[in-house]
C-alpha cells in the first residue's frame, strides 16, 4: 500500500494514468500525486491550464490530457517531484520517459543510465537522449530517457552515479552488549535511574530534577523534560496533560557570571 511504503499500486496509478489512446498520440504529463496536501505550483506552472485542482489548495491535481501537449514545464516545478512526461511515439521500440533529477554529476546526452522503477529496482541501462537544465534558480534537471516501450510506465528514476555500494546487513547474530538508555545527556541520568526514583515515590518533574539533577544541566531540560514527563505519565497512568511541569525561571539558558559583570548599566 502507498501509505505504508510510498510506492503507488496499480490501482493508485490507474487513477492518474492517461488512456492508451492518448499515450499513442504523443507526449503527455502524468502527475503521480495521490494525497491531498496543501500545494499548487503545478497549476501555476502549466501555461495551457491543463492542470487543475479541485476546491482549495489541498485538492488533488487533475490533468486535462486533451489540453496537455507534454511540454514538461511542470516536471521541474512540482515540489514533490511527482510529475513525469511519457512519450510513447519516440520510436517503434522505445518510449521516452522524462523525469526530474537532482543529483550530481549529471548524465550527458548519449550516455547510458541505470533505470529504476518506483521501488528503486534496476530495470537496465538505457540511453539519455536529452538533459534539460532547470536553471540557476530552479536547479531541478529534466532527464529524457529512451526506454523499451514496455517499460515506459515502470521507469521513474535513474540511479545516481555517486550512490554508495550496497552494504549487506548481517543476519541477526548480534554483536551488541547491553548498555544504558540515557534520558538526560547533560547530567548522565539513565532511564533506569528515572524509573527507580519514580518507584520511590517522586511524582513531579521538579521533584525528580531535585533528586537526580535531570534537567539541571546546560541544556536546561530541553532534551529530557518530555521524556521524564512520558515516564511519569506511563507509571501513574495519567495523561500527559496532567503531568505537572517544572518551574521555569530566567535565565533560560546558561550564562557566564562574567557576562552579567560586563553588562555595564545593570
Amino acid at each position: 500500500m502507498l501509505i505504508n511504503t510510498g510506492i503507488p499500486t496499480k490501482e493508485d496509478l490507474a487513477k492518474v494514468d492517461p488512456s492508451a489512446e492518448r499515450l499513442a498520440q504523443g507526449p503527455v504529463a502524468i502527475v503521480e500525486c495521490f494525497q491531498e496536501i496543501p500545494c499548487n505550483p503545478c497549476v501555476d506552472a502549466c501555461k495551457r491550464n491543463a492542470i487543475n485542482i479541485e476546491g482549495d489548495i489541498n485538492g488533488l491535481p487533475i490533468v486535462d490530457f486533451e489540453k496537455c501537449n507534454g511540454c514538461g514545464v511542470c516536471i521541474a516545478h512540482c515540489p514533490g517531484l511527482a510529475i513525469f512526461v511519457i512519450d510513447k511515439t519516440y520510436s517503434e521500440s522505445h518510449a521516452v520517459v522524462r523525469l526530474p533529477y537532482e543529483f550530481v554529476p549529471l548524465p550527458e546526452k548519449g550516455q547510458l543510465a541505470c533505470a529504476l522503477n518506483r521501488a528503486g529496482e534496476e530495470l537496465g541501462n538505457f540511453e539519455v537522449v536529452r538533459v534539460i537544465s532547470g536553471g540557476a534558480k530552479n536547479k531541478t534537471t529534466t532527464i529524457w530517457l529512451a526506454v523499451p516501450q514496455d517499460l515506459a510506465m515502470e521507469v521513474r528514476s535513474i540511479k545516481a552515479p555517486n550512490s554508495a555500494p550496497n552494504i549487506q546487513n548481517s543476519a541477526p547474530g548480534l554483536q551488541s552488549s547491553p548498555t544504558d538508555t540515557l534520558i538526560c545527556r547533560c547530567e548522565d541520568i539513565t532511564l533506569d535511574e528515572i524509573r527507580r526514583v519514580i518507584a520511590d515515590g517522586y511524582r513531579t518533574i521538579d521533584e525528580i530534577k531535585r533528586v537526580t539533577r535531570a534537567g539541571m544541566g546546560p541544556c536546561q531540560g530541553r532534551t529530557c523534560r518530555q521524556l521524564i514527563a512520558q515516564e511519569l505519565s506511563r507509571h501513574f497512568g495519567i495523561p500527559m496533560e496532567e503531568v505537572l511541569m517544572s518551574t521555569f525561571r530566567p535565565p533560560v539558558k546558561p550564562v557566564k557570571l562574567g557576562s552579567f559583570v560586563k553588562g555595564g548599566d545593570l
Partner: protein
Amino acid sequence: MINVEILIVGGGPAGLCAANAAADLGASVLICERDEIPGGQLVKQTHKFFGSRKQYAGDRGIAIGDFLLDEVINDPKIEVMPDTTVIGIYEDGLVLAERSEEIIKINPRKIIIATGAAEKFLTFPGNDLPGIYGAGAVQTLMNVAGVIPGERVLMVGAGNIGLIVSYQLAQAGVETAAVIEGAPTIGGYLVHASKIQRLGIPVRTGYTIKEAYGDGKVEGAVICRLDAAWNMIEGSEEDIKCDTICLAVGLTPLTELCWQAGCEMAFIRELSGHVPLIDKYLQTTNPKIYVAGDVSGVEEASSAMVEGRLAGYSAACSLGYGLDTAPSLQAGAMAELDELRAGPMSDRIRQGVEKVEKMVTKGGV
C-alpha cells in the same frame, strides 16, 4: 537600555515575517537572533516548499530565507541583532539578552516570541553514542557546512523531516540503509516517500530501533517490528550496519520564555507539546506577548511564515499602527492559515488549534 516598540525573539521564518509585517504598518522592530545570520532553519532546507505562491511555494527553503532576510535588512524600521539570545522576560516587562558574552537590557512595548522548536530525543539502549544525531543536525552538517555525517545511515522516523533528510543524504552521496517508522503508516507527505523509494531507499513502517551499538561510536543498530500496540515483536530483530543514526522523531515547541513570562500554557498533543494559550490574533494570556511559528505548535514552515505576518500585524495594531488596514490584513492571514490547514494531512493541527480555542474561550486550562 534599548527602547523598542516590538521585540521579536528569533529570526527564523516566523520572526522575519513578523518583522516585515509589523514594520509595514509603521512599527519599529528589533529582532534578537541567537545565530550569526537570521533565517532560522531555512538555511538548510534545500527542497522546494509546498503551499501556494503566497507562501513562496516552489522555491527552495534556502532561497526563501534569503529574500525574507533581504526585505528585513532593507527596511529602516527593522534592526537585526545577531549573536543575541534572549534569556529572560521579567515582571516589569524588561527583557534581558546575552550578546557576545555581555548582558543587554531591552525595554519593548510588545514582544513576539518566535523561538521555534527543538528535536525530540528517543529512548533506547546506546541512544547517546556519538554518531546518533537529530535529523536537523545532519541537515546542518550537510547543507550548511557541506560535511557528511557518515557513510551509511539508519533514519528513524518517516515524517516529512525523516523522508526529506534521507533524500538530502542521497544528494550528498550518503547511503540510507532504511527509513524506519514505528507507526503502521507513513506520517510525511507520500510524494517524499515515493521520491526516496524510487532511489532504492526502503521505507519500513511498523519498525522501531531496539538498540544502537558500537565502541565509542555507532557501528550498527538493531531494529525490530512493532505490533499494533507498539510492543516489540520478539524474534523480528534485524541488525543494520551503519555509522550514523538519524532521529527524526518529531519536534517539540521551545517555550521556556513563554512559561517563564507567565503565559498560560497547556499540553496539546496535536501541537507536539506544551504551547501557550493564544487567541486568534496570536496574543498569549500575557497581553504584552504574541507568538508565531513552531513555538505555538509544530507545523510546516509555510504556516510559520503566515503566523509571523499575523502576529506582526496584531502587535503593531495593538500599538495603534495601521488601524485602518490591519483588520483586513489579519483576516487575510487567517484565511491563508485556514486554507493551509484545510486538508486531511492537517487534521491533527486543526484539532490542536481547536483545543486551544476552546480553552481560551473557557478562560483557561
